[in-house]
């Protein structure tokens, strides 16, 4: 490939993440003006859950390492970000910028935790790794429970959130929504591009066969640590967004059950499919709030967990590989046809239509 053509592809890959963010912000504008405050909050949780699900999928779905400690990484990010936002030193930065950067700090803290957990435990496999990650999540929770600086068992109250940028007409909610959109798009773009590149194939090879991967010169331990660090970083980002949208943190939120919730999302969506994780995260956030809660109000019995579990069991019987298996949105024939038609309309070669998410066969 010529340098010129490579540069062309590079320029062409730039706009899509920005366009996606802008499109999401427009959706946020509609939601702000057409729904109540409660619905608006739920919509924000969707972003957090999408980030948590796709980041766990990198480790479990793509690299094949079963982790039960994702809520632990989320907790590190949430608490670190909340704690920083309460420090006077941090108030120096202007508001929207401050809250845009906080997730990065939460993410870095969580990534450090991911590295520390990763190094000694990644020689373990399967059940043993699951137990170690489970233990890690509990250690984080108990540590938070006993750290007075972050409120201990009482939790951390009055966590600030962005107040928007009223001079340019950005309301607090829309600002929060935009920050969440930005980080969600960034997470998905980064993870997608990592997995859909030749180097990202290393993660897949580790999932497929560790012994063969090693024999082909793949440093399997390093690959696993990398997967854990990248995944933990984004879990921390998700935790930070969570902290500033619910504005209250308690160690109990980050129990083992939270990790299981995230696992359910990636299993339902399909291990090894980011698209599936996104869809599952959306539905699993919405269904308890907008379907199960009204049902409970009518019947006056709390059947939520029963119905929820039943849906899960039925789903796993009917679609054991999850909603999409390992397929992504652009693996479907009708999407491919649509892309082809679109690119013809735009009078370009079909091959050149590599947006931010080129399929592997298009990366030529």
């Amino acid at each position: 490939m010529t340098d010129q053509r490579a540069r062309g592809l590079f320029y062409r890959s730039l706009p899509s993440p920005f366009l996606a963010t802008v499109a999401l912000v427009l959706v946020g504008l509609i939601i702000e003006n057409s729904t109540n405050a409660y619905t608006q909050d739920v919509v924000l949780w969707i972003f957090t859950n999408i980030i948590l699900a796709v980041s766990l999928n990198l480790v479990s779905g793509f690299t094949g390492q079963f982790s039960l400690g994702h809520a632990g990484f989320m907790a590190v990010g949430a608490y670190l970000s909340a704690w920083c936002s309460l420090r006077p030193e941090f108030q120096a930065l202007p508001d929207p910028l401050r809250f845009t950067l906080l997730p990065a700090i939460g993410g870095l803290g969580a990534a450090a935790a991911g590295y520390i957990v990763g190094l000694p435990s990644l020689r373990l496999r399967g059940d043993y790794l699951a137990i170690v990650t489970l233990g890690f999540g509990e250690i984080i929770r108990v540590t938070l429970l006993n750290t007075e600086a972050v409120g201990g068992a009482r939790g951390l109250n009055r966590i600030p959130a962005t107040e928007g940028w009223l001079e340019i007409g950005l309301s607090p909610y829309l600002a929060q929504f935009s920050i969440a959109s930005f980080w969600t798009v960034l997470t998905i773009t980064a993870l997608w591009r990592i997995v859909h590149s030749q180097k990202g194939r290393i993660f897949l090879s580790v999932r497929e066969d560790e012994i063969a991967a090693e024999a082909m010169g793949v440093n399997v331990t390093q690959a696993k640590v990398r997967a854990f660090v990248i995944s933990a970083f984004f879990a921390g980002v998700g935790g930070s967004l969570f902290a500033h949208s619910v504005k209250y943190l308690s160690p109990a939120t980050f129990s083992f059950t939270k990790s299981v919730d995230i696992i359910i999302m990636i299993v339902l969506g399909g291990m090894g499919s980011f698209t599936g994780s996104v869809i599952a995260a959306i539905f699993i956030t919405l269904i308890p709030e907008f379907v199960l809660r009204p049902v409970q109000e009518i019947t006056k019995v709390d059947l939520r967990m029963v119905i929820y579990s039943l849906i899960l069991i039925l789903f796993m019987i009917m679609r054991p590989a999850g909603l999409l298996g390992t397929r992504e949105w652009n693996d479907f024939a009708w999407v491919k046809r649509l892309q082809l038609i679109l690119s013809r309309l735009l009078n370009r070669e079909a091959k050149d239509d590599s947006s931010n998410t080129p399929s592997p066969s298009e990366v030529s």
Partner: protein
Amino acid sequence: MNDEILLEAKKVGMEFGGLKAVDGFDLQLRRGELVGLIGPNGAGKTTCFNCLTGVYKPTSGEVIIRGVNIRGLKTYEVSRLGMTRTFQNIRLFKELSVLDNVIVAGLQHARQTVMDDVLRHPRHYVEEARMRERALELLRIFKLDIKSDQPSSSLPYGEQRRLEIVRALATEPRIILLDEPAAGMNDKETEDLMHLIAQIRRDFRLTVLLIEHDMRLVMGICERIVVLDHGCIISQGTPANIKSDPAVIAAYLGVDEKSAEVT
């Protein structure tokens, strides 16, 4: 220069809870040689490979590859010394495409970073194209390029075996160890494969160690053969010498009469 020793095993032994699977295994592979390692089933051939490649830590003895003692090295580090292998029980990356199987093996020579991939830096596209081209070139030699987009698990058995060899070649090895590459193939396929092995050895200037339990197959292409039985070397030499060695015939007669009908 031609006698440079690329691989040397000195008194390698491997015990599994009292069972001596390999005992006092000595071997010297010189540059460019094609050596056959034969022996009846259960003789310890695969265990030898695992010791040579660092999958098993030998319970005794030393392995030196291109001047480096591999004691304490991880399998991937041994592989990066320029020695790679195929597996008797095929170990492809099943859900990855044929092409990706080959690309993964070449990744240690990739020049882009994770950041290049995330930013879709021009370097990313250049490297993607380069690795893809290289992988396709290798696949073409083994006539697998037309199937490059299929999942590797969908290939017929014989092609999976060939793909394992392509994947091994993609690491750009100097030494390649093939563990029963013809297992499960019919006579015609086996003969083609043996010619192919001889050909890549020439074209890639490889040093080859080839395991085969059916000794007729290797007679044609190996210039030297080592015979293993019950973990010990019972004979070695040219195919002609091996064929008429009573110890070899006895070993094969004891296990499998058909394979012994070579004389």
